[in-house]
């Protein structure tokens, strides 16, 4: 911690001596999230008077992505930006290797779940991360399911009544991360370890696909967020959703006057894998001076500092991404009285896994969305869906 403080002090003095350094920081954090980010950035600027941060809210994630694409193409990217890992591969060459600028202590402090290298480079660090957990209605599901079998029997028992608006579970077709979670829990993967073979249609993949297809018969299938359906009074027994949706789901349940609780994901043969969601931070090099890159690195270090990342997590519902924060007293005492946040934390530590860092993952995800939807709609047999998906992934891998 002392080394981090010294690093930040040196950065502050360094840039202070040369005059104020301005860095632009593009993000997609709206409402309360945006306010908390602004609060933290203001605090950073107070501590580092030599650095001015132009915090720019760019709209939702899609808008941010589109603006980043245009800005990078125009050669005018911001210095610092939030970005999903699958966007990163598009402009990998334009990014700075952060391990050259971040103190080793901070790099070592990141949870192993976030140990992510793109083509051998550390170009992003985790920031606002969440994990998939199970949301359930205690009045409909007194004991949350712990296994796939229990989950299926609960979903089947509640069934599906479209007229009354009652569903055993819910799936979002644009969210294939749920399928990937089931796939990993079944012991499957998209590609083999060396990326030479497509493995998604192996027996493990088929097991996951068949399980999802069975659940889908009793599921609300809607591309809108599930909280929208809950707010409209639609009853859903138990569904998998990101921990970042906690506030939205709870607010929707409160608005509808129904109870909602959080439980760990049902596991398969003891495998409780859960896919990590959320964005990272990356620094763009082409237009940046070294002082700006150092200032951006100082801001990243500040945001990852235990007190700040815990404050961020408490205010936003995201999870701390460093060992010092997640195991530290600040966070542990906070979640001691909050069962939902404790579940999310345990889920991240025990089963969190990240995205496949393949250069064509963005296109693969697009295919995953297409075929995940076909699977949910029951358009074809799970094996046929997986085989077609595997063939398409094979063509681009």
């Amino acid at each position, binding site marked *: 911690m002392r080394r981090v403080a010294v690093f930040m002090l040196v950065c502050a003095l360094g840039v202070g001596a040369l005059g104020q350094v301005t860095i632009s920081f593009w993000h997609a954090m709206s409402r309360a999230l945006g306010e908390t980010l602004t609060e933290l950035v203001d605090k950073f600027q107070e501590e580092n008077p030599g650095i001015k941060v132009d915090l720019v809210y760019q709209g939702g994630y899609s808008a941010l992505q*589109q603006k980043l694409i245009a800005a990078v193409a125009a050669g005018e990217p911001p210095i610092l930006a939030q970005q999903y890992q699958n966007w990163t591969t*598009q402009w990998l*060459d334009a990014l700075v290797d952060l391990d050259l600028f971040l103190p080793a202590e901070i790099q070592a402090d990141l949870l192993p779940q976030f140990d992510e290298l793109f083509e051998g480079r550390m170009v992003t660090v985790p920031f606002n991360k969440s994990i998939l957990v199970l949301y359930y209605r205690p009045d409909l599901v007194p004991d949350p399911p712990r296994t796939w079998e229990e989950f299926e029997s609960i979903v089947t028992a509640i069934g599906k009544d479209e007229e009354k*608006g009652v569903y055993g579970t819910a799936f979002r077709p644009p969210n294939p991360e749920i399928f990937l979670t089931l796939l990993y829990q079944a012991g499957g993967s998209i590609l083999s370890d060396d990326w030479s073979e497509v493995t998604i249609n192996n027996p493990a993949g088929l097991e996951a696909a068949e399980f999802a297809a069975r659940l889908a018969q009793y599921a609300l299938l809607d*591309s809108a967020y599930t909280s929208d359906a809950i707010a*409209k009074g639609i009853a859903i027994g138990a569904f998998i959703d990101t921990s970042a949706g906690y506030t939205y789901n709870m607010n929707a349940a409160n608005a509808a006057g129904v109870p909602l609780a959080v439980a760990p994901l049902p596991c398969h043969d003891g495998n409780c894998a859960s896919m990590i969601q959320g964005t990272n931070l990356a620094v763009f090099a*082409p237009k940046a*001076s070294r002082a700006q890159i150092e200032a951006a690195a100082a801001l990243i270090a500040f945001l990852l500092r235990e007190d700040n990342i815990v404050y961020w997590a408490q205010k936003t519902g995201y999870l701390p991404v460093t060992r010092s924060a997640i195991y530290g007293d600040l966070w542990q005492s906070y979640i001691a009285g909050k069962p939902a946040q404790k579940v999310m934390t345990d889920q991240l530590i025990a089963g969190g896994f990240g995205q496949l860092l393949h250069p064509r993952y963005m*296109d693969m995800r697009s295919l995953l969305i297409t075929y995940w939807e076909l699977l949910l709609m029951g358009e074809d047999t799970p094996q046929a869906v997986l085989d077609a998906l595997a063939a398409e992934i094979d063509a681009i891998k």
Partner: protein
Amino acid sequence: MKLPTLRKGRRFWWDTLEAYVYLLPTLAVLGVFTFYPFVNAFRYSVYDIRTRTVPGHVVYVTVDSSAWATTLARGRIPDELADVLRKRGATPDDLWVRLRQADRWVIKDEASGQEYIIVREGEEIRVHQATTGWAMEWVGWANFTRAFRDPDFGKALLNTSVYVGTSVPTTLFLALLLATLLHRELRGKAFFRLASFLPYITPVVAITMVWAWIYDRNFGLLNYFLSTLAGWFGLQFSLINWLNDPRYVMPALVIMNVWRFTGYQALILLAGMQGIDREYYEAARVDGAGAFGVWRKITVPLLTPQIFFLLIISLIGSFKIFEEVLILLQGPGPQKSGLTVVYYVFTKAFDAGHYGLASAASVILFAIIFALSLFQLTVVQKRVHYER
């Protein structure tokens, strides 16, 4: 005989210049936002475009690869490289490593902003001047082949064709009926004319947001209206999932846009109807023609110039359907049932970064619209009756 002179007077050139000065702002806007992108779409369609650090000319070659690699891997500049770049005007303290891989490194000269890429090939290391940005690599027809092989593009073409094939004639037919009604003497005619035009002048975003609510499965106005109607006739009605059932997505888009454009088209047709000489109607009545006969044999044929104009305009406009999909469906819709060609272009360019593919798809769309417009101008126009 005195031949007309080709030589123009000074007055003519001043008038021409003056006209161009007035046109300049419009030409500038059109040039930047229409013509330049239009030409570039053709150019981009034959390139693979990515953000890359592209090597330029070679600055230095060495065989001392392992020593360089070790130093660069630590994020430091090898002394030999610092010397080389010093001779090129760089100050060693201004050089820093920003990208390092096993066989590829990028360093930047802080003072000049110049980047250098160092590439290891076997025992040899080459130092190149480099630029990072949009790099275009010629791929010929590959983007077009890729588009035609992409099932999503096929689906987008099919969906767009279905949309155009249903919404254009439906809108035109309803507009013709509405114009006929508005042409009659009726109370509150001015109000109905204004009301029918309102959807056209209301921003599409606002319209689509309202229709998203109208189409809501459980609480939407349309399902409420249909279930009430079914109730009156004692029929069973199961709520239609307009925006989440692939069977109803396209009808939902068509209904919304028919509603949006009918009023506008009706006013154009109404203007045409008012321009038809009354003598034709009087002559027909003298000959004993009925109201429908007059409408079919006189009004419609004499409206063909307006109908033809609307047909071309609405055909082109319908092929470009985009905002409605983006806002109403927040995506391509269930099973991509709402995926249209422009939405495909948009997502390929701005979500996936495949600019070449997106440009190729837009060129294909242009070719289709161009061919159809040409067909209309050559074949369909022969059936247009111009009043003489």
